[in-house]
């Protein structure tokens, strides 16, 4: 049973998927403009921005949206009216309105998946857009597909550091979903009403574990190394899904000491596909490199530089230091087993987004990945391509935007 003038959920999903499909075309004029604007804002190279936009819009397809809603709410129909549930009262879900989505200034299109599900929930949504106006451009496309849907969205840019502007947007919200640094999230939280639902996505990092079985021969090692390199270099290592620490198990045909230079060479290959957004290594990377070189001169570890672009692979850095959370810099730690990786994560209280693994059955590795605090376990090489249907940061996709109503 739908409310007066309300779009059915199926129609909303179709409109969103159709708009996203237009954005999958790299020649779509709004996308061309957005690509330039994102490059200008972030400094990433065009292939990197293209990859980001491809991943973003390709993931927003009808079946993925519907499967996600059905998975979290039981059925898409529950957004339009009451549905029966086994052993529980019938339920329907209404959008928590107004909902506010605050995109981080340092990511690409992070607000859009959230916007998709907020609209599916039939919430009235305000999006804090960034200077590239990507969210606004997508909403314009949505307006062409389904004007009534686009009218439910307000896209604005406001100054986060201005408490008055922030308060005006946040004080009445029922739901606020925000991305950003701890400081930015704290500032937002401080402006919310007591009962506002606040879903915060802070900065995190990702690691991976290469089991010895994956290094059974040279070709296998090269393949794993390419996967690791891709996860480490995409977005210049700036993303929460960027690989910063790679634990490599001893006991395979290829020893971790031999694997590290293979990763460095693989980085050179990946750098051709995804060039760095900077021409010279940032200062902190240079300092880290010098320290690693000093240790290497003393026989502890090794350092491998990029040839075609700046990157750094540090082999066997001190485990009493956190990983180098630096652009295009990857630490490779030799270990005897997954518990060593877990101990490292716990020692440094690393907030993990993803835990990368290689194909193959290793229940002990999976057990450690589950204990690590990561919200996602993914195959190496796929860290930077999370599916829409997976929970983001451990949170549901549509759940934050709905309130349940059950009928007794």
């Amino acid at each position, binding site marked *: 049973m739908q409310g007066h003038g309300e779009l059915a959920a199926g129609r909303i999903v179709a409109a969103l998927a159709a708009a996203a499909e237009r954005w999958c075309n790299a020649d779509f004029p709004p996308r061309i403009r957005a690509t330039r604007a994102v490059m200008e804002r972030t400094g990433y190279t065009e292939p990197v921005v293209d990859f980001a936009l491809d991943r973003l819009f390709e993931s927003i397809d009808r079946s993925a949206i519907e499967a996600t809603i059905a998975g979290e709410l039981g059925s898409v129909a529950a957004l339009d009216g009451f549905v029966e549930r086994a052993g529980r009262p019938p339920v329907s879900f209404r959008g928590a309105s107004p909902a506010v989505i605050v995109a981080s200034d340092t990511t690409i299109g992070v607000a859009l998946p959230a916007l998709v599900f907020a609209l599916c929930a039939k919430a009235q949504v305000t999006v804090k857009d960034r200077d590239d106006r990507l969210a606004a451009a997508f909403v314009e496309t949505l307006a062409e597909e389904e004007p009534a849907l686009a009218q439910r969205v307000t896209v604005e840019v406001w100054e986060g550091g201005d408490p008055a502007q922030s308060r005006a947007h946040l004080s009445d919200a029922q739901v606020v979903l925000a991305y950003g640094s701890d400081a930015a999230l704290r500032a937002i939280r401080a402006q919310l009403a007591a009962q506002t639902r606040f879903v915060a*996505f802070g900065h*995190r990092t990702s690691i991976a574990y290469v089991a010895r079985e994956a290094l059974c021969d040279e070709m296998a090692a090269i393949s794993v190394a390419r996967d690791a390199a891709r996860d480490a270099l995409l977005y210049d*290592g700036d993303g929460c899904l960027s690989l910063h620490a790679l634990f490599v198990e001893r006991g395979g045909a290829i020893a971790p000491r031999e694997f590290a230079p293979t990763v460095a060479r693989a980085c050179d290959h990946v750098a051709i596909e995804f060039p760095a957004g900077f021409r010279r*290594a*940032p*200062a902190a990377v240079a*300092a880290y490199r010098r320290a690693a070189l000093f*240790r290497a*001169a003393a026989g502890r570890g090794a350092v491998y530089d990029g040839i075609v672009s700046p990157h750094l692979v540090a082999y066997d850095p001190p485990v009493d230091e956190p990983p180098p959370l630096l652009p295009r810099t990857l630490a490779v730690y030799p270990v005897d087993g997954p518990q060593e990786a877990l101990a490292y994560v716990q020692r440094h209280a690393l907030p993990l987004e993803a835990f990368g693994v290689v194909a193959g059955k290793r229940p002990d590795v999976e057990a450690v990945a589950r204990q690590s605090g990561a919200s996602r376990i993914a195959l190496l090489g796929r860290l930077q391509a999370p599916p829409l249907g997976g929970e983001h940061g451990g949170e549901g996709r549509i759940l934050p935007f709905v309130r349940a109503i059950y009928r007794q």
Partner: protein
Amino acid sequence: MNDARARELDDAFLGIVANWAAGGPGCDEARFDELARATCGYQLERNAPYARYAATFGIDPAHRPRTWREIPAAPASAFKDAVLATCDPREAELIFHTSGTTADVAGRHCIARARLYDAALLAGFDRFILPDRAKLRYLNVVPNPRLRRHSSLGYMMGTVSVLRGDGHAEYLFDEDRGVDAAGFVHAWESAVADAQPVCLAGTAFALVALLDALEANAQRFAAPAGSRIMETGGFKGRARVVERTELYARLETAFGITAASIVGEYGMTELVSQYYDGVESRDSTIRVKRSPPWLRTLVVDAEGRQVNDGEAGFLRHVDLGNRSSVVAIDTEDRGYASGGGIVLLERELDAAPRGCSLVAEDLIARVR
């Protein structure tokens, strides 16, 4: 010390310091070059970790640097990876611990002879902080050197307080308990009652904490004439950073000490000698730091190549006082050369934050 070469180098260094302290030039470029290379040669033979590192640059006892600019610089972080000493650390008269940043591990700077450190310290401090030879009361917002004997800043201010102070120095900072604001108020009022000018000394971080505490109670103070402040950087590893100009403005307001009487000191645990704001730039928003002639700095790019004057880069210090450790040290500090001195850059200009990745500062803030 049963080491003739070390004695020779130390005597040469002390001679330069004494000459400069007495108003002489200290050393010219040629003398600096000669002594820096001699010190490097000595360290290549006596400091095994440094020698191994230098060898990766093609420098060894048989292939020595041709000028002081070619001396391989050890990264400052190397002090926590190795014992960088030409002496047995057990025989070092001073051992200072470096502060850890992201890691828990502290490095150690072993100084074979305290006399070298004291001589360099007092000559620089007299020149830049006490040109009027004032006997000040030292209100040190730094660790008490008796309690934290491995704090170089504590030792520095302890030495100055004893040898240059009025005998009533106070220590108002403890790493566990933070700033002792009540103790500060008491000490300040006592100095005012005695009409005794003070030197308030501390890291920028500690001074901010002190100001926060005093401003929370709306407390302001009028400093006795001749008072001054020595601020010594020190936001490394801290989640909160303030601009220097903002800090100085707050200090002026709180204590009635003009910005020209607030002197920025720049030193490192890994160095024996210090930089200070040059007198001529203390009224300017851009302060040029000056050093004694035995401490020279190259501004280098990420690959270690010297950049042009005015161009930003990393600071590589060559300190003749570092005879018993490493004479040349690469730092993560950034700045540029200007008129014979250096200007420190407060933040990295070429690394605007991008992405949603955790950064080291986040981790520090969460752990703290």
